[in-house]
């Protein structure tokens, strides 16, 4: 593995609503420093899956133009050779968030654990679509991953009802790792947890297992505590509070070969869900260990009734009654899927299929895809507070509600989400977007992970898609010689497909001086102008991820985005 020279990249956009531009602060007015909760999952040099989560304290911008890291704590676990010491975790002793005057940046974390990162120092590329939230990718050559960092708005003990999922790797034989996924709901009162969890470890599925004897311990000054046994009896977990409604948690077991990281989202003050809560929606799910990703959109309805088949190019049945109640409802769907590492690899573009789902009052439901979408069939669905934005939990203004999902098939193990599809106006997919992707490639290896972040500009009505890319490919999976580069770029044209809400981006050209151009076939599904999901469906490479809009740059403000996007600086 090579470790490329790391340069400071940063892109930040001086757009309205982003306080972090023009030498300002990414923090709330008056704050001297803020805590941010982060997590990521990916592959490191020693193991197929590693997870990291923590809280970092970042001071306001200094005279040297950078934001100093003043402290924090993290947990790192690759399920094998590296796990942060417990109960202390890794102390974050320094570092900085390098934000140039009009750029996003790189977060450097110096820890007291020489086993992580490069001699204890980790670096992440970051792109902030708004001041409270960024996509992150580890970018120091020791590992590659995708995740997020979010302003921490509470350090209090979690309370109330939550939905959760997590993913990672487990070994049940002591010899090999298998992919693992978990999903469920729980209620926590004074730290005591009751609930149910679905588990899928290497295709060994257990549904609706009772969660008993689990306790959230009192969090420390960083909002960190333990919640052993939440996902599985023998797993020791630490949690990190993001806010009153969101918690990240990570497996820190040093005794067994397991690692996982996940999130829990509030279900609201008084959860009372029904199948009617899942209406027209966009779904996405993936798992880099399993080696697959999917995205699509669903239309839900009560029953066939007098509904007429959908017109060509539409997933909406004419006259289909809306879904209601807690009984089973039906769904029509169109989706893109890349099961690159399935026993029989499958790539599907705009594939039509049917299915059904059911969501009881506690938000712990099931969803089934009928034949037609590869090997995917069975899911658990775990409804979240209708006011929560799953990708950006501090943003309550758009793309809120929906559910977490976990695949419960014996050959596919992964996690994802369903979010309401509230806006499929083509012109609203415009502006500036923070994009991220995580995937595998067989171009030069048997299937290692790569990750990227991009700051993309989408212009309408021509559908132009372009922007700089930070590519993390430390295992030379996608590019034979380049390991880390900030000099890459995307160009392409977004074309609305026959299915309203879906776009083709084919080819999406990834270019860099080091490796020329790689053309990718990509499908995009629009939940709203603010949030979209994309998946690559090539036969030798795939990625899945999201696009999150910078506020004030879309729709009628798109021309502003176009002018700002030119302000990419190294």
């Amino acid at each position, binding site marked *: 593995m090579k470790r490329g020279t790391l340069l400071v990249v940063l892109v930040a956009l001086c757009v309205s609503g982003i306080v972090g531009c023009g030498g300002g602060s990414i923090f709330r007015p008056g704050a001297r420093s803020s805590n941010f909760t982060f997590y990521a999952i990916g592959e490191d040099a020693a*193991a*197929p899956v590693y997870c990291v989560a923590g809280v970092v304290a970042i001071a306001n911008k200094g005279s040297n133009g950078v934001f100093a890291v003043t402290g924090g704590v993290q947990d790192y676990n690759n399920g*094998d*050779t590296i796990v942060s010491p417990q109960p202390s975790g890794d102390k974050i002793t320094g570092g900085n968030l390098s934000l140039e005057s009009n750029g996003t940046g790189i977060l450097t974390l110096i820890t007291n654990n020489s086993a992580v990162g490069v001699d204890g120092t980790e670096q992440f590329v970051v792109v902030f679509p708004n001041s409270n939230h960024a996509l992150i990718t580890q970018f120091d050559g020791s590992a590659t991953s995708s995740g997020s960092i979010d302003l921490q708005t509470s350090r209090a003990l979690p309370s109330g009802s939550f939905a959760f999922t997590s993913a990672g*790797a*487990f*070994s*049940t*034989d*002591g*010899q*090999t*790792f*298998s992919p693992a996924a978990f999903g469920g709901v729980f209620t926590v009162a004074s730290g005591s947890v009751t609930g149910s*969890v679905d*588990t899928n*470890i*290497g295709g060994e599925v257990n549904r609706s297992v*009772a969660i008993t004897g689990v306790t959230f311990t009192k969090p420390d000054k960083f909002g960190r505590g333990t919640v052993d046994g939440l996902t*599985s*009896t*023998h*797993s020791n977990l630490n949690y990190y509070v993001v806010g009153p409604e969101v918690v990240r948690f990570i497996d820190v077991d040093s005794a*067994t*070969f*397991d690692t996982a990281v996940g999130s829990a989202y509030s279900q609201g003050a008084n959860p009372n869900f029904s199948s009617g809560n899942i209406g027209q929606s966009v779904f996405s799910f993936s798992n880099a260990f399993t*080696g697959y990703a999917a995205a699509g959109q669903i239309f839900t309805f009560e029953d066939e009734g007098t509904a007429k088949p959908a017109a060509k190019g539409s997933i909406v049945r004419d006259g289909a009654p809306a879904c209601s109640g807690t009984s089973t409802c039906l769904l029509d769907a169109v989706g893109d899927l890349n099961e690159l*590492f399935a*026993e*029989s*690899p*499958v*790539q*599907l*573009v*705009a594939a039509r299929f049917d299915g059904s789902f059911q969501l009881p009052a506690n938000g712990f439901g099931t969803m089934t895809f009928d*034949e*037609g979408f590869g*090997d995917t*069939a069975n899911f658990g669905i775990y409804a979240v507070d209708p006011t929560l934005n799953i990708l950006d939990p501090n943003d309550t203004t758009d793309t809120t509600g929906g559910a977490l999902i976990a695949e419960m098939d*014996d*050959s596919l*193990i992964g996690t994802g989400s369903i979010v309401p599809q509230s806006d499929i106006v083509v012109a609203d997919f415009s502006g500036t977007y923070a994009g991220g992707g995580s995937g*595998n490639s*067989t*171009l*030069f290896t*048997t*299937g290692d992970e790569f990750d990227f972040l991009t700051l993309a500009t989408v212009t309408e009505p021509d559908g132009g898609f372009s922007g700089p890319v930070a590519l993390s490919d430390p295992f030379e999976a996608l590019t034979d010689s380049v390991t880390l580069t900030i000099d890459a770029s995307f160009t392409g044209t977004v074309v609305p497909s026959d299915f309203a809400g879906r776009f083709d981006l*084919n*080819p999406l050209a990834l270019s860099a001086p080091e*490796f*020329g151009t790689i053309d990718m*076939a990509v499908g995009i599904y629009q939940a709203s102008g603010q949030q979209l999901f994309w998946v*690559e*469906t*090539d*036969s*030798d*490479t795939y990625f899945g991820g999201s696009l999150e809009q910078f506020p004030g740059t879309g729709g009628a403000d798109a021309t502003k985005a176009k002018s700002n996007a030119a302000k990419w600086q190294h």
Partner: protein
Amino acid sequence: MKWRFPVLGALAALALCLFAVPNYAQTSAVTTKSAVPHKYDITQEVTLTGTVSSVIKAPTREMKMVPGSHLMLATPSGRLDATLGKYAMRNAGVSSITAGQQVQVTGVNTTVKGQQVFVTRLVQVNGHTYKVRNEHGVAVAPVSGKSNRSAYTNGGQL
């Protein structure tokens, strides 16, 4: 995915050729048709013995093989493409297999995109058995053997 290079001047293009940067031409193999799920059926497993004719650690796209590593075996019944999945070559015992060695493979015969392949779960060589897939056909990755951790065991809540 398709690799290409931007339109360059003649000198630039020549320079690229001289430095032999790969220029792949490959079109997406996508379909909008339904795909029939392919489940690994352990009841259909067979164990075969053969001589390794070649080891393909990372097939090129021109080979049009199932992603992941492969052992090409000569067996009494003919040539066998034993697909090992994504992580097999992380196992030192598998990655050290060379042409001419006798190996035993356990798995299921199937057809992928018109090609007969042997979906391998176990590889036995030099008296050692290596698991490259689990009982559900899911590709598994070897643990390093460098830590003191033990197997996770189901029980209780699970």
